[in-house]
């Protein structure tokens, strides 16, 4: 089965290629078959490969397709490397990707650019698979940029609206900033190791560098730059909320489940490097903590359903970063997977709602959908529970709890990080259920047009099941102690070293987390459902509203960057449109023309003047001869 590894990314690519080449001529059914089918087969192969992997338990599968190029020893291959870490990722990518493709057949049914949509989606899946399967950093970079391109194309899918195009370009540009840092990191890696092969680097780094070597720290920071850009973390997070301009399946697949977690993958993949660079690892944790708080606050104030989810994504990835930062690698990946399920679910539900409400995204104009869209309501509720980490039943509880716990229990953890995470958890449950209450409860405000059919319901239900059941493969020590997932990852990702004798406090912390989550829900319930005057009083307070506006704008980052970078750049470009250097050459031309006119005046046609010219010349020559 491992021989078919290459088919996993190749099939979606082939699908994309077919759709691009034959696009306009194919009947819609065939487009669907190619678009969904290619990802479906990939998912099937992934599952088969996964079973094989589980049964054989090899260290990794490796498949080299061809040598990309070879220049003076710099010889990256187009080769795939499948180990447990990439296994988790390709599973989420192909499986969730497949579900979202299925969903899209209905969601995009009326779009004239149906083919283009599936072409881009397939291309995305392919690139993402290359990203996580690459055995060297350069191929990874190829996938990395490829998903960036697809993200750009899909955010700006409805290109007629200039705002969408703006959002798309913003996404591409900002991630490219991070990519630039990453590229420089790659140069340094290459200079040090003479290769970009990930396994080689991982094994050699330990021998070459001591912990805390400056070079390692710099490289880790540069890679972190790339990760931060892709994953929408501080300070490059501003593109992600705007990226919601794309169709909702896109938001679900790219901007929630897969692409934005590429940063998590990168750091997990290069964990050896980060372990050698404690400063960088610390930075990962701090960035995660700060991001999750900032994004959580911003999510509290959004009215656009998808923007709430977008900020929530940023915030949840912040959790993953937090986990990575304390060395809880497998916890981060676990949260990635669970988050992939429930966030995709939430987005797909949101999509169903938006479709039903004639592309209405403002939560203030929703409400009362509980009865009208029951399937969507229940699945959304499940997803929300998972996001808010409702104890015991939801998968999100288990994955998030692990992260919270390791903040204190892990050796690299600290109380501040824990507190931030805890506060974040509280905020999360508040905004999650604010969303639930505003959307599904209260009075109905907009007419429901479209009832979801099977193509939408099926993915919702499957994802809902996963959002509930997914957590049970990894349960805390004191609570079933299932370690299927971390066992699976253990050959790749070392377990976090836990402070000894701390585990007896674990139940306390779990209780605390559960309380926080539930109290968040309760407060949301109070404000948004039970006591509307409480909400009104908040609205009356000036300071609260100022804070609201500030948060609503995503902590003013957009404005800041606009003032600091965008405007000066555009201004510079605008004033220099005519190219100031050119005026130097124009000046030379003008100068010669001036001399031309000057000399031409001497040629005035008067014989006397010409005689004078000769005399002057004679005098000059005689002066020179006599004086010198």
């Amino acid at each position, binding site marked *: 089965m491992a021989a078919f590894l290459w088919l996993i990314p190749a099939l979606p690519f082939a699908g994309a290629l077919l759709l691009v080449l034959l696009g306009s001529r194919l009947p819609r059914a065939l487009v669907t078959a190619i678009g969904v089918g290619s990802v479906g087969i990939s998912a099937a192969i992934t599952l088969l490969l996964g079973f094989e992997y589980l049964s054989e338990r090899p260290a990794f599968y490796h498949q080299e397709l061809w040598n990309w190029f070879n220049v003076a020893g710099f010889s990256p291959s187009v080769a795939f490397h499948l180990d447990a870490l990439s296994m988790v990722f390709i599973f989420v990518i192909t499986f969730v990707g497949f579900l979202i493709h299925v969903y899209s057949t209905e969601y995009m049914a009326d779009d004239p650019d149906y083919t283009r949509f599936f072409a881009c989606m397939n291309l995305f899946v392919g690139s993402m698979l290359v990203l996580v399967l690459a055995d060297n950093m350069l191929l990874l970079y190829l996938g990395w940029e490829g998903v960036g391109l697809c993200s750009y194309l899909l955010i700006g899918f409805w290109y007629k609206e200039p705002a969408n195009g703006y959002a798309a370009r913003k996404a591409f540009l900002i991630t490219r900033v991070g990519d630039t840092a990453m590229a420089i990191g790659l140069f340094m890696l290459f200079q040090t190791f003479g290769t970009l092969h990930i396994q080689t680097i991982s094994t050699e780094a330990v021998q070459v560098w001591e912990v805390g070597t400056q070079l390692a720290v710099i490289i880790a920071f540069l890679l972190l730059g790339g990760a931060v850009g892709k994953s929408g973390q501080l300070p490059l997070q501003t593109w992600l909320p705007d990226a919601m301009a794309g169709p909702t399946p896109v938001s679900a697949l790219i901007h929630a489940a897969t692409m934005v977690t590429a940063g998590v993958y990168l750091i997990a993949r290069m964990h050896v490097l980060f372990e050698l660079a404690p400063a960088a690892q610390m930075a990962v944790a701090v960035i995660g903590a700060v991001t999750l708080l900032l994004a959580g606050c911003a999510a509290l104030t959004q009215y656009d359903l998808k923007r709430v989810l977008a900020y929530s994504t940023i915030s949840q990835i912040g959790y993953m970063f937090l986990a990575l930062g304390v060395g809880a690698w497998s916890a981060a990946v676990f949260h990635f997977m669970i988050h992939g399920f429930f966030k995709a679910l939430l987005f797909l539900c949101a999509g169903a709602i938006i479709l039903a409400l004639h592309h209405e995204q403002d939560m203030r104009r929703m409400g009362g959908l509980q009865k009208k869209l029951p399937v969507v309501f229940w699945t959304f509720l499940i997803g929300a529970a998972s996001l808010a980490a409702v104890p015991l039943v939801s998968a999100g509880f288990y994955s998030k709890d692990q992260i919270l716990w390791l903040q204190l229990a892990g050796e690299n953890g600290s109380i501040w990080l824990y507190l931030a995470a805890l506060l974040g958890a509280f905020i999360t449950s508040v905004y999650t259920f604010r969303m639930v209450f505003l959307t599904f409860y209260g009075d109905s405000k907009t007419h429901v047009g479209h009832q979801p059919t099977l193509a939408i319901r099926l993915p919702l239900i499957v994802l809902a099941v996963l959002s509930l059941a997914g957590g049970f493969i990894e349960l805390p020590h004191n609570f079933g102690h299932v370690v299927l997932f971390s066992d699976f990852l253990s050959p790749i990702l070392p377990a976090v070293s836990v402070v000894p004798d701390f585990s007896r406090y674990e139940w306390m912390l779990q209780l605390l987390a559960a309380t926080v989550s539930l109290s968040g829900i309760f407060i949301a319930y109070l404000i948004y459902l039970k006591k509307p005057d409480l909400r009104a009083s908040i609205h009356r307070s000036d300071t609260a509203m100022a804070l609201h506006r500030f948060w609503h704008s995503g902590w003013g980052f957009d404005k800041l960057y606009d003032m600091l970078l965008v405007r000066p750049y555009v201004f510079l470009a605008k004033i220099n449109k005519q190219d100031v250097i050119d005026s130097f050459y124009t000046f030379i031309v003008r100068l010669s023309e001036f001399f*031309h006119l000057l000399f031409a005046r001497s040629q005035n046609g008067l014989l006397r003047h010409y005689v004078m010219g000769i005399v002057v010349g004679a005098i000059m020559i005689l002066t020179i001869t006599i004086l010198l």
Partner: protein
Amino acid sequence: MNANDFLHLMPLLILTFGAIMNMLVISVWRNHKIIYVITAMSFLAAFGSLFELQVQGAYSIDPLLVIDGFAVFYMGLVLLTALLISMLSYAYFEQREERKEEYYLLLILSTLGACVLVISTHFASLFLGLEILSVALYALIAYLRKRERSDEGGIKYLILAAFSSAFLLFGMALVYASTGTMEFAAVAIAIAGLTELPLLLLTGFGMMIVGVGFKLGVVPFHMWTPDVYEGAPAPVTAFIATVSKGGMIGLLIRFFIEVDGFRYPVLVLIFTIIAIASMFTGNLLALQQQNVKRLLAYSSIAHMGYLLVAFLAGNEMGVQAVSFYLVAYFITTVGAFGIIAMLSDKVRDAEQLSDFKGLLWRRPWTATIFIAMLLSLAGIPLTGGFVGKFYILAAGVRTELWLLAVSLVINSVIGLYYYIKIIAVMFQPAEEATIIPYKLQPSIYVASMGTLTLLTLLLIGIGVYPTALLQLISTVLETFQVVAYR
């Protein structure tokens, strides 16, 4: 004077004979065709007689003249050019009412003057040659006497030429006063021992430079050029630009190398200044010029500046470079003015830039020839002008005249602008011609076009395969080198 002397002076004698023949025939029977044939024949015969001389090495007719390789080469150049010009003149004058026949008489005479100039080794012969050349030229310039401009050009040239001749003569007198001889070689011997030249001699040289500079049309003695070029009939302009200047260059080289003027920094400095000033002034003046004849006049000022660069290089290579450049420049200039002559009508010459609008589409072959000539003037490869300029630059670099070399480069670029401007005018969308040339007889037309085509082929020939010409120049100049560097 013995028989051998006469043999060696055969080209001059043939020319004289041709002139007298013309005079006689005119008095008997005015016929353009016959006069033309006689003229062409005498140029051809004179040119042919050179082949006899070439093999015999330096032969000096003391004290006035010397026939050496250098002289043969320059005479050949002058005669061939004159022949070509006379061929182009026929078509030009055929369409005009003026009496055409005396023109050829004057043409032969001034060619004779130029020939004397390049073989002279004595102030007297120098003066004689110069004046034969000049006096004939006065009449040639003003030949189309019904045209105001022609007369104006003539009188301007006359006054200024006589004026500068006075300088030349006075300078010669001073040199004579200070050295006691008028022979170049003797002058050289007289000053050979001196490291510091006496004031009288220097003043004399200075005043001679005025006279020479005027004939060459270099800054600051250049102001006559545009007016005379514009006023004179196109073939005459070609003649002034080539034969008259070429003769003077030949003389200058002979004299300067004979007295080894490069030893004296003052003289070198003066020529350097003149060269640089000529290049810049000429090119800048040409920059926005709308009249093609004036433009070519200004460009000729610049080209004389380029020539001086090679001249200042002062070695064997310099002389060869000057000679090569002159060949290319002569071909080009004759070609360019030939085109102007061909396109002219009865009333005026085709000299306005607008007359050339769309020429490439109206008369593609004529335009192509003109483009080739212009590109050669600009020094673009595939043409002789490129090799010439390359040679000059090489000579300059070899002697490490960096200032001059760099000025040459800068000026080539300025010059390029106005040459390609003319080309650009030619490929503008075709319009109705503002000037419609006289419909020539097919045979004459074919002959003129043939001449021009020949020139173009020559030009490209020496541009692509300069080896033959280089070979010729170096063998012909061998005898001269012996004399010059003895």
